C-alpha cells in the first residue's frame, strides 16, 4: 500500500492561512472595539424567513430542514410554512415587548410569494437581508460561475425591488458556498455576509471586488442547531444562550465590545411550546443595561 507522493507534500504549509480569503489573526490580540453609547454587548437577533419548495431538487444535496419524504412531502413543507404564517407573529410581539431591533434574512422567493409578511416588515422599518433565492437554490463547490452569478442577481435584484431597501447583508442557504460566492456577492453590492463561523467578531474577507465584512452569526447557538441537530431540551436552549451571554459580557470587561448573535427560525422557536423560551432568553438579556440590540447592518457599520 502506497499513496501518491502528493500526500506527503504540503504546498500551503506557511505562515498564515492555507488560502488567501482572510488574514490570520487571534481575537485576543486585536484592538478593543467600543460600541456606541458605551454599551458592552451587542445583541444581534437575526430571523431567517425561509421558503422550502415542495418540489425540492436536492442539488447537490438535500438542504437540512428540507423535504425528506417522497413527493409530496406535506409534513415538512407545512411545518416550515408554519413559521411564516404563525411563528413569526409570535416573534414580532416579543421583539416589541423587549425593544429588539432584528434583522430579517429572507429567501427572495418568500418575499415574492408573501407580500403581506414583507409589508409588515417594511412597515416596521426593520433591516432586510438576503438569504438566497430559496432553500433549495444552493451555492456549492464546483458550481458554474455564470449560473451562480445569475442566481445571486435574481435573488438580490428582486428582493431590492420588492423591499425598497439596498440589501447589504447575505446568508447563503445552509451557509453553503462555492469558491466564487464571496466574489460574486461583493460584485453585486453585498457588504456583509454571515456564512463563516470562525470568529466571535467581524473581520475583513478578501474578494476580487473589494472586501466583505464576515459577520459572526454563531451556528452553535442557533435554535435549529441546539434543538433539531443536537436534540437538546428547550430549557437547555435557554441555559446555553444565557451562559453564552454571561460569558461574553464578562469578556467585554477585559477585551472590549462583544457580540451575542442569535440566529432564529420562526418554524422552530415560534412553536407554542417554545415561544416562552425565546421570551425567557430576551427577558434575561435585555435586563442588562449594557446590552445594545441592533441589526447586522448597523453592527457592521459600527465595527467599520
Amino acid at each position, binding site marked *: 500500500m502506497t499513496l501518491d507522493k502528493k500526500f506527503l507534500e504540503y504546498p500551503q*504549509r506557511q505562515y498564515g492561512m492555507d488560502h488567501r480569503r482572510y488574514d490570520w489573526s487571534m481575537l485576543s490580540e486585536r484592538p478593543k472595539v467600543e460600541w456606541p453609547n458605551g454599551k458592552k454587548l451587542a445583541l444581534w437577533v437575526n430571523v431567517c424567513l425561509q421558503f422550502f419548495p415542495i418540489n425540492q431538487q436536492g442539488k447537490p444535496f438535500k438542504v437540512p430542514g428540507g423535504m425528506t419524504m417522497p413527493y409530496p412531502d406535506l409534513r415538512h413543507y407545512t411545518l416550515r410554512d408554519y413559521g411564516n404564517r404563525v411563528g413569526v407573529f409570535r416573534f414580532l410581539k416579543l421583539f416589541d415587548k423587549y425593544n429588539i431591533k432584528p434583522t430579517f434574512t429572507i429567501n427572495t422567493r418568500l418575499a415574492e410569494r408573501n407580500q403581506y409578511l414583507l409589508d409588515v416588515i417594511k412597515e416596521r422599518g426593520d433591516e432586510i437581508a438576503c438569504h438566497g433565492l430559496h432553500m433549495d437554490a444552493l451555492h456549492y463547490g464546483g458550481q458554474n460561475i455564470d449560473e451562480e452569478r445569475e442566481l445571486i442577481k435574481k435573488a438580490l435584484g428582486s428582493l431590492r425591488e420588492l423591499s425598497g431597501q439596498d440589501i447589504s447583508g447575505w446568508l447563503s442557504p445552509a451557509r453553503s458556498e462555492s469558491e466564487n460566492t464571496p466574489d460574486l456577492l461583493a460584485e453585486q453590492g453585498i457588504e456583509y455576509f454571515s456564512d463563516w463561523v470562525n470568529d466571535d467578531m467581524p473581520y475583513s474577507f478578501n474578494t476580487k471586488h473589494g472586501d466583505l465584512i464576515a459577520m459572526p452569526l454563531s451556528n452553535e447557538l442557533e435554535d435549529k442547531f441546539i434543538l433539531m441537530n443536537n436534540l437538546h431540551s428547550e430549557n437547555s436552549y435557554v441555559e446555553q444562550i444565557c451562559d453564552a451571554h454571561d460569558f*461574553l459580557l464578562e469578556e467585554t470587561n477585559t477585551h472590549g465590545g462583544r457580540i451575542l448573535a442569535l440566529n432564529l427560525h420562526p418554524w422552530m422557536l415560534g412553536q407554542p411550546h417554545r415561544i416562552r423560551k425565546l421570551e425567557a432568553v430576551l427577558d434575561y438579556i435585555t435586563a442588562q443595561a449594557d446590552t445594545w440590540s441592533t441589526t447586522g447592518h448597523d453592527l457592521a457599520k459600527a465595527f467599520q
Partner: protein
Amino acid sequence: MNQEDPQLYDYWPYQNRPKIEWPNGAKIAFWVAPNIEFYELDPPENPHRKPWPQATPAVGGYSIRDYGNRVGHQRQMRLLDKYGIRGSISLSTAICDHHPEIIELCAERDWEFFSHGIYNTRYTYGLSEDQEREMIQDSVDTIEKHTGKKPAGYLAPALSHSDHTIDLFAEAGGTYTCDLFHDDQPTPVKVRSGKKFVSIPYSLEMNDTIAYVVNKIEPRRYGQIIKDNFDQLYVEGEESGTVMCVPTHNYQVSCPHRLRAFEEALEYITGHPDVWVTTGREIADYFIEHYYDTATEDIQSRKQA
C-alpha cells in the same frame, strides 16, 4: 493479513495490580490535552477517508475549526492559567508554520507538545510504512525545531492508524501513545524494538468533540460527567493511582455557552487535595521509572498462572 487483535498489550485485569503511588502521595494524575489542530481547506483526497462531506469549500466544517485557533485557545489558556494547569498539546505540527504565535504562548507556559501528525486532514490510511515513517519523523522534527524538545507522545492524526503506527513512533524516539482507550492506568505497550513504551489514558469519553459532536450532549452535562468521572477515579486512586485526562478542542469547549460548565469542572477537580495536576509526558516518565518493570512482571506472572 489483518489479525483479530492489535497485538499491542496483554490482558491485565484491574483487580489486584501492584499499587501505584503518584508523587507526594497523590491518588490521581490529572491532565488536560488541548488539541491544537489545522484542517486544510483543500487537502488531497485520501482514497480511504474523505476530509469533508462536500466539495471545497466546506465552509461550515473548515470555519468552525478555524474558530479554535482564532478565538478558542486563548480563552482556554486563561482558564488553565487560573487553575494552575499546564496543557499537554496534541499538535497538528503544521501549526508551527501557520500560527507560530500560538506555539509561543504555549511554550511560555512550559506546556508539553506532543505529535498529532502534520495536518488533521492527512490520514494515515493508505500510507506505506516508509511514508508513515517520513510523516511521523517530519512531525517530530518540526516540534523539536520550534520548541527545542522532541515530543514524547503521539496521537495519530484524526485517530487514523496503521499496524505500524505505534512501532514507528517508538522508533522515532517516543515513549507514550494516546491512541489506546483500554485502561484507566498507564500500561506497557509492546513495540517491535523492545523499548519501554507505554499507553497513557487519554479519554474519548471525556473528549469534548466526542461529547458535543458525536454524542451531542448539553454543555452543563459535559461539566457534570467530568466531575463524575473524577469522583470515581479519585476514590479508586486510593487503592492504586489512576489517570484522568480531559482532551479538548477549542472550537468546541471554548465557545461562549460551554466554558462556564467546563470551568466549574476544573475548579472542582483542582480544589481537591492529593491530585497531581500534570502532563502526559510527566505521567509517562514517572510510570516508566517507577512502575514499568513491576507492571511487566505482574502481567507476565498472571499470564503464566
